[in-house]
């Protein structure tokens, strides 16, 4: 067991957990933040995407002890004070989700992209989002949602 201090969605946590678990398990099983999903546990699907020290990362590809001292953002932190972010709003408005299982990861990848590049091109969106698989939407509505959110966030 190991003590880990980390900040998740601006809240500080101190957790005792086994050393061999991943950040994904830490978030889901120890912090009960189940918005981050497990789709493959092998870095192939992106369902567990979080923002780890400012960069989008598969939470299944980070060992829990690596998160000691880290700043993590998850889907639970995207809406502020009960108000959806423009990105979340845009996902709903453009039907950028169906079953919703990939959606938290999609939104976190898109969030990291927009934080780094407020006006991404279509190709830049594809490049940034390639690691997030969706079996339902065909991706097109997700691209639209991100483009529109980018426009909206820039305008704001």
């Amino acid at each position, binding site marked *: 067991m190991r003590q880990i201090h980390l900040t998740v969605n601006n809240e500080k946590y101190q957790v005792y957990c*086994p050393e061999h678990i991943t950040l994904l398990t830490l978030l*889901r099983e120890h912090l009960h*933040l*189940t*918005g*981050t*999903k*497990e*789709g*493959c*546990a*092998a870095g*192939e*699907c992106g*369902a567990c995407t979080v923002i780890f020290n400012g960069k989008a990362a598969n939470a299944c590809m980070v060992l829990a002890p690596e998160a000691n001292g880290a700043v993590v953002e*998850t*889907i*639970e932190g*995207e*809406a502020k004070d009960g108000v*959806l972010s423009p990105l*979340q709003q845009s*996902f*709903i*408005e*453009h*039907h950028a*989700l*169906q*079953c*919703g*299982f*990939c*959606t*938290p990861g999609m*939104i976190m990848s898109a969030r990291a992209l927009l934080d780094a590049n407020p006006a991404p091109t279509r190709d830049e*969106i*594809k490049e940034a*989002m*390639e*690691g*997030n*698989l*969706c*079996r*339902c*939407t*065909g*991706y*097109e*509505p*997700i*691209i639209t949602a991100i483009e529109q959110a980018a426009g909206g966030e820039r305008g704001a």
Partner: protein
Amino acid sequence: MREYIGKGALRHDGIEKVTGQAEYLGDIKLNGMLYAKIKTSPYAHAQIVSIDTSKAEALPGVRAVLTGRDENVMVGLYMVDRWAMAAEKTRYYGEVVAAVAADTQEIADRAAELIEIEYMPLPPVLDVREAVKASSPQVHENSEVYDYIKGVFHPEPGRNIANRTKVRKGDVDAAFLRADVVIEHTYEQPQVFHLPLEPHGTIVQWGAGDKVKIHTSAQSPFAVRDLFAHGFQLPRSKVEVNVPYVGGGFGGKAGIHMEPLVGMLSKRCGGRPVKLIPTREEECATFPCRQGLVARVKTGATKDGKIIAEEVEYLWDGGAYADYGVNISRAGAVTACGPYDIENVKVDSVTVYTNKIFGTAYRGFGHPEVFFGIERQRDLLAKELGMCPVELRLKNLLMPGAHTITGELITEHTGRVDKCLKMVAEKLNVGQDYTPEEKAEFQKTGKYRAKAAAVLQKSPAMPTWSASSAVVHMNEDGTVHITVGGVDFGQGTYTVLQQIAAERLQIPIEKIVMAPGVNTDMSPYDWQTVASRMTVLCGNAVCEACDDLTEQLLEMGSIVLRASKHEVALGDECVYVKQNPQYSMPYSKICMGYTYENGNAIGGPIIGRGKSIAQGLTNLDPETGQGKTALDWTYGAHAIEIEVDTHTGDIRVVDMASCLDVGRVMNEAMVHGQMIGGVLQGLGTTFSEAVYYDGEGRLLTRNLTDYKIATFKDMPEKLEICCVETPQLDGPYGARGIGEHPLIAITAVIANALANATGAEMYDLPLSADRVRAALAKE
């Protein structure tokens, strides 16, 4: 009147899903919950000689270890042929042989490793063409004892044949003699994974008094209840199935899966809840997939392009169990020749057992597979006749007045495949040749472009008695809750039902709420959420429930307003007197009963109930296959332009148009969502998706590294979605189902375009660069 149908509404569950609040099976934790792990077979076909569980049982924290020899149960939706665990022999790589429940997942995983199993390998049956022969080793030695739906399926015990559905129409032999042209080809397709992002998780608590509570990631809560109760001989009333948000299914979460096994583990553990979340590797190896297909198609036509005879043999690679997948051979027989008017037809559609992962429902239920061969065959026939393939199709398509191969009459309300085809062909200018400059460029670069078009059809494949129901509750403030027994696992059914209720009741859609998830103790019955049947059947049930609610509102209103029922009407969420609309009563005053000034009260909570069942369907005649199986036919067409890199075999989708005759667009963005998503899934099946085994039947494509689905970078460069609207008279507001259809015939339209671009005729899938290049090399 406000319009809620058409442009549509935003998803009913959008907020829950974009915030991560939507609770999926894996997110559920119960007090005292244990964790399960399955132990699977490393052999495709083997006798189980011995199982030693002693080391696993000795591990601290292990609460139960179960093998097929301790306790077992047989399940199956149509063909009851599948044990919860292999007991005597294993029939596919990945089959469950034993299972563990323990205090933590880590302990369960470790315990599963400690189970020692000795196998005696048997020769695996891996090729359907060999498996179907009488001389083949048997996958199931005593299949004659299996229970199945008699009169619907026709197994041939003693051989690896779980079902043979025959269609006989006219006289094919005579027609082939008469034909000017006869062509025959064999088309082959591998198995394909469903690959929902969320695995098939299950939690079961087998409590005292045999009261069983199941939480499961399933498309069909009532089918799970039914099959579970049937398997364990429990009354339906003792089995409760709760389905939370479901992360995609594509058919793979229909029927029943690990619920019986996990139930037995829970029973062993004194009724503690047991949770099983399969790994992605287990999802691939252990859970069912889409069947493979070997299709032999022989077609006869006159020289002016009229198809007069077609003989089809479909060998479905059903894998180790027929369970649910056995109905695919029946569905494949009904649709065997596509939406064409053909006088003389002979079809044999056969489910074949092999030692592979077993097949089940997959988006399209046999149609994407059938249409690869059928729509390839149409282009090949056109080539043989020197005709334009679009013209050939138009000459033979089903039009009002024609009969399907099973004898169903097509009317002007059935839908118009010809309009779909013309629309997409025009959008892409299919048939228009490239300019000499363009052709010179193709030659220079080695990158050749070509276009093609193909048509599709599908009707729901389901029992004739497949039914839905809905309950509409009005709350104290006049808002409305709807409960149904079908699941919205992303396809958008609930949003459409919400729209239907808003339209029917003329209540703002924001005031209509779909109860999230389904619980069989609380939700009304629905057979299964499959077959693109929900908008039609559940939609009709919601219409009826809303009408029932309306009647009750009118009745209460007429009493309270002291008017006859015919003198009152509904509007603005009130009952009012038609002649004097100022006399009105808001719903909120009457929907829980009305209270007079002196305290007297009448009425009570208003609840509408509705039901629907497929009308007028029949079983097929066992010898001729004649009968009516279609609740509704949805037709469609795709046109495509591709570019083939002849150096590498890579195919790029340059442009595409897809069209369905949807009956009525209920929610435009959702129709587009289904179609864009379905097309991309079809492109995956075309280019990269295939389940591979080694020579011993061991699975090679075990995870998302080995098995590739389309990513953001694999989208078509252009895709236009369009709809034809020929109303389905008995569909709600004219709608028909569209969820499965977009991916049908995608494989064929691309293979046809490939042939047009390069001359390479491909008869098997996938059209991976590897295989395309090899085919080009042969040219």
